[in-house]
């Protein structure tokens, strides 16, 4: 896996300053995404999965947030590797919406209520596809006037725009048509009926599912290499959820892009993800191929998470909730963060932070049950009972 990866997050740590101390939202998180692959980042609320996702676009507000360590490398085709965290603002802006896009949990909140759908989509083209807009309006990009460029970029002021429309009517119309065409095309691509009408509407006039389609159209407008979907269906009706997920999958297949799902919904993982990374209290505790991890979870937390899914055969009142609650993230102690809720917890778990440990090819777990006492230099009696890697997992 030398140069095959698209995105490589290495030892990422993000902290938030607060009155009580620094909250360790993400600690030493590392993972890779291959081109065209679907990775699901799974965990409960507050485990740091959203912060990880936002870090990839460098969207964590600084302050109070702070990237204390690590790198997020993007392999840009034909241009080499860019570290998003140390890149200039300009470079990051060129990546956002163009190489990596994001769709958000609640499309009702992620669309600006006071702008039309069309003008919000047009912004993406104005930012990343100025030349395309100018060309299809019959204007040579190298020879475009300042006013023409400003209009193509959606930066012209109201007065400027009216003046241009008055003095160069045909060009103004051609530019507007070029922008509208691009927007309508991207909307139609996501299966939105009657895109020309939708363009003129405001977000509040659309249904939740329609808004999420608009968000997807906006995110995919520039053919990104990676789509980050931060709980894309949580705010939607159950009947719409499947359709949105299928749409994402369909777009992914057609364009060959990678998708990073941020979710707590394991049924999404089962259906759509190639690989899974389970996060707990800011750490990745287990990674591996989705089907294998779900069929045979190794980390006690993953195990508990799967046990908490209601099943047809689960008798009423016997849902296995994980006891206790997520530990505090402000100045956490040097120990396994799951120790307080873990049935296997032993002395060693309270004195060290477990690291991801390869237990099988493609599978890693951060748990002392998979490590030797010698490598940690603790007494054998302090170690938790070693896990037996079952035959099914080896298969």
């Amino acid at each position, binding site marked *: 896996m030398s140069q095959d990866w698209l995105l490589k997050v290495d030892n990422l740590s993000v902290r938030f300053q607060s009155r009580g101390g620094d909250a360790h939202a993400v600690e030493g998180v590392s993972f890779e995404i291959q081109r065209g692959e679907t990775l699901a980042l799974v965990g409960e609320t507050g485990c740091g999965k959203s912060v990880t996702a936002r870090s990839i676009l460098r969207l964590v507000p600084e302050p109070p947030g702070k990237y204390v360590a690590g790198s997020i490398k993007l392999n840009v085709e034909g241009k080499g590797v860019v570290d998003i965290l140390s890149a200039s603002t300009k470079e990051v802006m060129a*990546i956002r919406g163009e190489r990596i896009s994001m769709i958000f949990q609640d499309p009702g909140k992620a669309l600006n209520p006071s702008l039309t759908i069309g003008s919000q989509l047009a*912004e993406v083209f104005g930012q990343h596809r100025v030349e395309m807009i100018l060309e299809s309006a019959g204007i040579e990009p190298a020879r475009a006037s300042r006013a023409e460029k400003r209009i193509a970029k959606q930066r012209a002021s109201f007065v400027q725009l009216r003046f241009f429309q008055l003095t160069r009517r045909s060009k103004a119309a051609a530019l507007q048509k070029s922008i509208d065409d691009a927007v309508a095309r991207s909307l139609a691509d996501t299966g939105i009926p009657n895109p020309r009408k939708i363009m003129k509407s405001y977000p*509040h006039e659309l249904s939740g599912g329609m808004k999420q389609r608009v968000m997807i159209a906006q995110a995919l407008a520039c053919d990104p290499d990676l789509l980050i979907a931060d709980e894309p269906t949580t705010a939607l009706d159950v009947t719409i959820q499947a359709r949105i997920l299928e749409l994402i999958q369909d777009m992914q297949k057609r364009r060959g892009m990678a998708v990073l799902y941020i979710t707590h919904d394991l049924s999404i993982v089962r259906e759509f993800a190639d690989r899974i990374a389970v996060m707990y209290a800011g750490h990745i505790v287990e990674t591996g191929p989705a089907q294998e991890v779900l069929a045979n979870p190794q980390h006690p937390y993953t195990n508990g998470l799967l046990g908490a899914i209601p099943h047809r055969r689960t008798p009423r009142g016997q849902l296995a909730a994980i006891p206790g609650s997520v530990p505090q993230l402000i100045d956490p102690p040097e120990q396994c963060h799951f120790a307080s809720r873990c049935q296997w917890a032993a002395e060693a778990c309270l004195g060290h932070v477990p690291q991801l440990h390869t237990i099988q090819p493609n599978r890693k777990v951060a748990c002392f049950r998979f490590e030797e006492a010698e490598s940690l230099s603790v007494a054998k009696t302090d170690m938790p009972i070693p896990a037996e890697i079952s035959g099914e997992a080896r298969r």
Partner: protein
Amino acid sequence: MQIRDYLLRRLALLPVIMLGVSVIVFTLTRFTGSPVGIYASPNMSPDEIAALEARYLLDQPIPFQYAAWIGGLFRGDLGWSGVSVAPVTEVIGLKFAATLELAIAAGLIAVFVGVALGTLAGVRRNKAPDHVARLFSILGASTPTFWFGLLLLVPFYLWLDWFPLGRSTPDIFSSIIHPTGMYTLDAIIALSPVAFFDALRHLVLPAVVLAFGAMAIIVRMMRSSMVEAMSEEYVDAARAKGLPNKIVIRRHARRNALLPTTTVIGLSFGFLLQGAVAVELIFRWPGLGQWVTSAVLAGDQATIMAYVLITALIFMTVNLAVDIAYAYLDRRVVLGG
């Protein structure tokens, strides 16, 4: 279409509300005693005063007096202004134009500086610009207008003599005609730069003083709604599209933050009219505020009632304008009722 219907309905409602205002204002003013004092002189005999009362229908029952006043209103007669020694309707236009010019100038300063400062404070939250803006708004909200006016008057008028009192220099005033009564506008119409700068020189200081209080409110509102808007998900979504910070703030955050601020701007226009009373006295600005002050002191009821009526009218017009601006800015608002 929908905005037009709403506008028509509200305009139809206007006379009804004005009628209510007129009843209240008439009753309250009459409580203060007979208005005959302003017309009488100390050496009149009781018979002469009685004749005067009969002339102004003051010997008639109160409802009849009200009817006479309202009847006059429809004929364009609001009575005799004792303090101006002229019919009210003849003076009120000039006074109104003077105050309107001052209020508009102050309003523009308050809105532009207030919105800019509030936006900056909201974006750079808890940084130096935010502290400055907050200090500014606390000072603005807690400094009495008359005191702030005097504070500026001492250096800029007394010591430096940069800004004169009153509304204009007499020679320059009589050099052009005044169709609107707003001297800056008149100077522009007359294409006279000399008159314009003279009018501006007189206008700046009172307008700044008047703007200060309203600006404080706008800064506070703009700051808090900007802070809120910046934490909205659509701001993150706009960043995720690759838009530069400037555009994210202007087109996405500020546009929405302006919504609650619009309401406050409308309300602060009321503060401007209120503050105008003190400012006009200090800067010898011959507007409604100065007029009504002398009317109150002299017991000139015709002037007081006319002032209240016109203030009510201004308030309602501004509120209507705010409602419409709101519907224009926020497409989710459905005007009705």
